[in-house]
């Protein structure tokens, strides 16, 4: 199975248009000489072993981290069991620990970030890849990549001093007036809270999604665009019918990269999300994420159970990230097999 996937990556490089499903089904297009050992050359052998070592290193690191975190959280696993996942209390003084508000905060803030960032960054990517004149492409592309290089603490400070007051004074009252009948927009506008966390995350993951999507779209062969234009398609129709379907799985990959950053982001989020371990339907209410509470409390935590509970939160974050990545893989794979998409970058 893995072999099939490996070889699919080679499709298209030879410039021949491939029909959907052909690659997996026709062994004639495999190139066994590319993976066969052939004559033994010492240089090749060393090179292969060294790269294998590096590859093994990443897997071993991952395994070591998982084992270490499980061991560190043993006390909490033993004391709370599965109740840890559904517990809503986080009281270090009474040593009562439950992870649910943090899991909720992490998932909802990341989801909110995706909701805001995905449409915007796809717009940016389409403009940069298909529509903008060359000089704008270069300069704007550079600026967007620069956004990704800003340290998260700077985003956080900007969040405290600019974003939160603006949300409190302008955006949140307006949302309340227009959509106040929804539980999402009830409560006192405070500026900091779930909404601020989601917006900050959206800004932070936007450059990642936009620049990767742009590269993916640029990689779509020009012959496809020319074909669509020759058939009388407008610019929009060309993008929709020729470019996006080809780039689809790559775009999903870009979104996953962005999601990964959103889930693990600590500093900027903790500075604007309000850090309150409560589950509230309102986006104006303060919330808390797993990464934030670990960063906030680990350094000063004393007491074995407390440390174990924080480690277990790390373990859950690890698990959630892993699960979402697996789902994403599945999604990329599924999207690649949809009609009209060849599923390659």
């Amino acid at each position: 199975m893995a072999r099939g996937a490996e070889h699919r990556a080679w499709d298209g490089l030879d410039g021949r248009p491939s029909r959907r499903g052909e690659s997996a089904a026709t062994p004639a297009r495999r190139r066994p000489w590319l993976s066969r050992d052939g004559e033994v050359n010492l240089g090749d052998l060393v090179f292969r072993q060294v790269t294998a070592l590096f590859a093994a290193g990443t897997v071993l690191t991952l395994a070591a981290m998982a084992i270490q975190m499980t061991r560190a959280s043993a006390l909490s696993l033993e004391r709370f069991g599965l109740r840890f996942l559904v517990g809503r209390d986080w009281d270090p003084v009474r040593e009562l620990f439950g992870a649910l508000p943090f899991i909720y905060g992490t998932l909802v803030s990341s989801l909110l970030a995706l909701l805001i960032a995905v449409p915007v960054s796809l717009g940016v990517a389409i403009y940069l890849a298909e529509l903008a004149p060359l000089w704008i492409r270069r300069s704007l592309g550079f600026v967007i990549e620069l956004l990704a290089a800003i340290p998260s603490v700077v985003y956080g400070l900007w969040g405290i001093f600019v974003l939160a007051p603006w949300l409190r004074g302008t955006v949140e009252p307006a949302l309340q007036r227009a959509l106040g009948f929804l539980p999402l927009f009830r409560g006192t506008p405070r500026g900091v809270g779930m909404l601020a966390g989601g917006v900050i995350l959206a800004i932070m993951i936007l450059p990642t999604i936009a620049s990767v999507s742009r590269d993916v779209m640029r990689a779509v062969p020009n012959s496809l665009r020319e074909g669509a234009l020759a058939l009388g398609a407008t610019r929009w129709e060309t993008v929709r019918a020729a470019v996006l379907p080809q780039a689809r799985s790559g775009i999903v990959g870009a979104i996953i990269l962005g999601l990964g950053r959103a889930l693990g982001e600590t500093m900027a989020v903790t500075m604007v999300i309000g850090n309150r371990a409560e589950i509230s339907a309102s986006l104006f209410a303060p919330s808390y994420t797993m990464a934030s509470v670990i960063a906030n409390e680990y350094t000063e935590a004393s007491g074995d159970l407390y440390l174990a509970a924080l480690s277990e939160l790390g373990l859950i974050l690890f698990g959630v990230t892993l699960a979402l990545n697996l789902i994403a893989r599945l999604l990329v794979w599924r999207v690649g097999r949809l009609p009209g998409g060849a599923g390659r970058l």
Partner: protein
Amino acid sequence: MRSIVMLAAAVALAAGCKDKAESVSGRGAESTGEVEIQGAGATFPYPLYSKWIAEYQKLDPQVRINYQSIGSGGGIRQIIERTVDFGASDAPMTEAELGKAPAKLLHIPMTLGAVAITYNLPGVTDRLQLSPEIVAGIFLGELKTWNAPPIVAMNPQAKLPASAITVVHRSDGSGTTAVFTEYLSRVSAAWKGKVGAGKSVKFPLGLGAKGNEGVAGQVKTTPGTIGYVELAYAKQTGLAYAALRNRAGAVVAPTLENVAAAAASEVASMPADLRLSIVDAPGKSAYPISAFTYILIYEDQMDTRKGKAIARFLWWATHDGQRLGPSLDYAPLPAQVLPKVEAGLRRLQSKAKPLLSS
């Protein structure tokens, strides 16, 4: 199989390099007679400690001290595991923590800090005056608006708005929270029962902000907020902060003199191990949310040379070094406390010999 052999070779190579590097640096330190001391812990006294270290370096260039401000909890963990030569903590260690240490640890008070109640009330120009009941009431969520009768009664001249009070507290575990919640537990039975004291507690309401800078930023940008920060931080950022009614019934502002007065008024009850809480101190001018910050060190030092260097540094810091405190907003140790600190330092020993000559 081959890759395993390669792995083993690589590890052996790396280990070899490390050994070599260590032996080289070890020899270097021996020959020049330098002593390197590692310390880690509380962030609160860090500006003063780094000033002390820089000044002491000038007095004794042979002694190199490296202090990492990783937080009190980290300082306690590292001294228990003996990965540092001294730890530092704002709150004294608990009996349970002391029980985990492999040998007897000493607490040396180094300087004094205080927690200021800071607020943002546009139009209120006079310093707000608060009683312990008001502070506890606000942080418990019982007093919800700024014009609640108890607050108005304490501040008859102030134009207090009818707006809601927004509480801001620290989200990260901190000595500041420990001192503040200890004070609240001391003055309010309701707080003690519902919340308790600690470096991280479950606050009944409010927004959590990271670090003193987070609380200060939140208070500064949001009218109607109240929070607590280290006194030095409140002074340096120009935030408004309240005066508090103390146990003697006087309303005192958090000044360095009033913080020192709190320590001086409790000195009679200081135990031999020097662990002492000075919140809600009885003195007439005592600011009630004050605290010592401590250096943690093993009574019996394994390395005599290193032990001697640390002992001399601590002696200097608690004596001549104290004059550097006020410019950085740390209250110097009051004269009444000094004999007890000296007695503590004289207990430092190595191979059954005291490290400081009397």
